[in-house]
């Protein structure tokens, strides 16, 4: 009996130590994060319009990549249709502006809700099934979207798309708004996810992912976990879409094809499914910058992305386990 008590005391002592270590590590990354954000905030002072524009898009893409990574990490599922949820957000912002004349700050929450609702609608039929059904359904969704957008062209503007012109923040130049709003979005999404990771909800989702039957016996229903996971992920994707449409000032069906969705997944893999700001930024930079660096070599883009995907996935798998855990941050 006494040995049990001492060993449990040992355990709690080492747990306290581990907690302290984790807390100090967390403080360190938070410090680095703040420095990084400050650098990014100061960047428009030195960089030209081209860079602020590109980086604005890159931040929005990074949020979309986070939404894909979220689904992989907490749901253990692949979506090949996240471009559709991004498009839902983008079109919501554009249409709210076109018909109601309201700016981004009003339409952003609406966009998030629209995205989440759409996510639930498409996850619902496959809520009891394995993730492949969701993956194929999302792939069909991605292919169906341009057809639907073009058919309702009186509302969606057809091939031309819709423009997003209204200012969101008064007193700041358009160029800077298109940089700072996506940055603010990225920072707040990653901070929210940081808090989310320590919540009961996240623990329930993780349990349902790693051991569905154990989760069921604790009262976490698998179908519920899957739906909520998809709703949150699609909501984040819609936020990304809203900011993307604001930064690029236009939305059109061309920017949301099946390729968009596949490339988002590539970005998520390249960022190692990171939910942190800088992990996602690496994926976002890769997605946004690579085609530009390779301008004129369009046919090489699929090869490059495909190779990057394989190299990251296979290379990561070849690493020793301890390294892998470190790279994944030992978390969700």
């Amino acid at each position: 009996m006494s040995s049990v008590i001492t060993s449990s005391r040992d355990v709690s002592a080492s747990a306290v130590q581990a907690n302290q270590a984790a807390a100090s590590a967390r403080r360190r990354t938070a410090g680095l994060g703040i420095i990084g954000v400050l650098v990014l905030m100061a960047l428009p002072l030195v960089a030209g319009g081209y860079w602020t524009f590109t980086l604005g898009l890159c931040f929005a893409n990074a949020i979309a990549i986070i939404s894909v990574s979220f689904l992989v990490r907490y749901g253990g599922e692949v979506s090949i249709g996240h471009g559709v949820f991004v498009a839902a957000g983008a079109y919501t912002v554009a249409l709210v502006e076109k018909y109601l004349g309201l700016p981004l700050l009003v339409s952003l929450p609406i966009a998030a809700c629209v995205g989440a609702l759409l996510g639930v609608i498409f996850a619902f039929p496959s809520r009891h099934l394995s993730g492949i059904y969701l993956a194929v359904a999302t792939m069909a969704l991605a292919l169906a979207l341009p057809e639907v957008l073009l058919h309702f062209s009186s509302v969606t503007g057809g091939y031309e798309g819709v423009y997003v012109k209204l200012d969101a923040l008064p007193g700041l130049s358009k160029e800077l708004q298109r940089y700072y709003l996506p940055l603010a979005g990225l920072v707040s999404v990653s901070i929210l996810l940081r808090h989310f990771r320590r919540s009961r909800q996240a623990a329930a989702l993780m349990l349902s992912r790693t051991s569905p039957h154990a989760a069921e016996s604790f009262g976490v229903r698998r179908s519920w976990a899957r739906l909520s996971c998809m709703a949150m992920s699609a909501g984040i994707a819609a936020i990304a879409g809203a900011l993307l449409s604001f930064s690029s000032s236009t939305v059109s069906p061309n920017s949301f094809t099946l390729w968009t969705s596949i490339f988002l997944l590539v970005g998520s893999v390249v960022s190692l499914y990171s939910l942190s700001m800088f992990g996602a930024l690496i994926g976002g930079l890769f997605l946004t910058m690579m085609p530009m660096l390779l301008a004129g070599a369009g046919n090489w883009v699929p090869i490059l992305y495909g190779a990057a995907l394989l190299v990251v996935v296979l290379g990561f798998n070849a690493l020793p386990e301890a390294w892998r855990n470190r790279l994944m941050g030992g978390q969700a």
Partner: protein
Amino acid sequence: MADLIGLIWAGIISGCLYAMGAIGIVLIYKSSNVVNFAHGNLAGLSAFLVFGFTAGLFAEMAWGAAVLLTLVIMVAVMAVSYLLIAPLVFKSDLTSTIATLGVGLLAQGVTQLLFGSSVVALDLPLPSWRARLGPLHITAYDLAVLGTTMLAIGVLYLLIERTRIGIAFRAVSANPFASRVCGLSLRRVHLFSWVTAGLLGLVASLLIVPTTFLSSTSVASFMLQAFAAAVVGGFNSLPGAIVGGIFIGVIMNLLSFYLAAEFNNTYLLLTMLVVLNIFPKGLLAVRGGLRV
């Protein structure tokens, strides 16, 4: 009425091709739990190879020789694609499925590099025979598709029921762990299913091309219907893939004729969602109990 019968007939013909694509996807999924999203791009690449060998891009061969040569190349390509993702297959279904997307992107890129993104026509060497049977118009193409599908399915059936590798395939798809304990090589079974899937994909894409055109994406988008067929039939069932393929072929034809033609992918999506709601595990899946 005559319309309806003709539409159903045409639907069955294209459904046979979706079924062949779906069988490939299901074979791979059953043996290794990997959903091969590269299937369409690899099949598209193979159709382009036949085009390249017959149209004088690489060589000017007779059609039969070109197909044989492409068959050999496809065996190699599928083996390489499997070996690329082989290190992941036993680690995580999710990661290996993502890796197949990488393979698909590579296949797509190679196709574009070698053949450009232009649209080409690739015909089958068929006589221009046609006949009327009541309301049915039957062409040599229809019979070729039906005959080839039945032959392919028959050969596959014999392969799976009668040969050693087929028995191994059934054992592995029923219980991988027990099969490994019994000394079966899972890798060999995986390789068998990848290569067979690739060959079925080649046959299906060659047969589908005369009805559309061949571009670097056309076969890949045709494969969406194969995926839909696999979903409708239940991802785990080979007969389900055939039933699902024909179901998808017929229903797509009817919907695009009676409603509107430009919504093909939307119909596929809706069909999948409806079927998943009514038959959660596909039309032909056995509903098993939950094991803890």
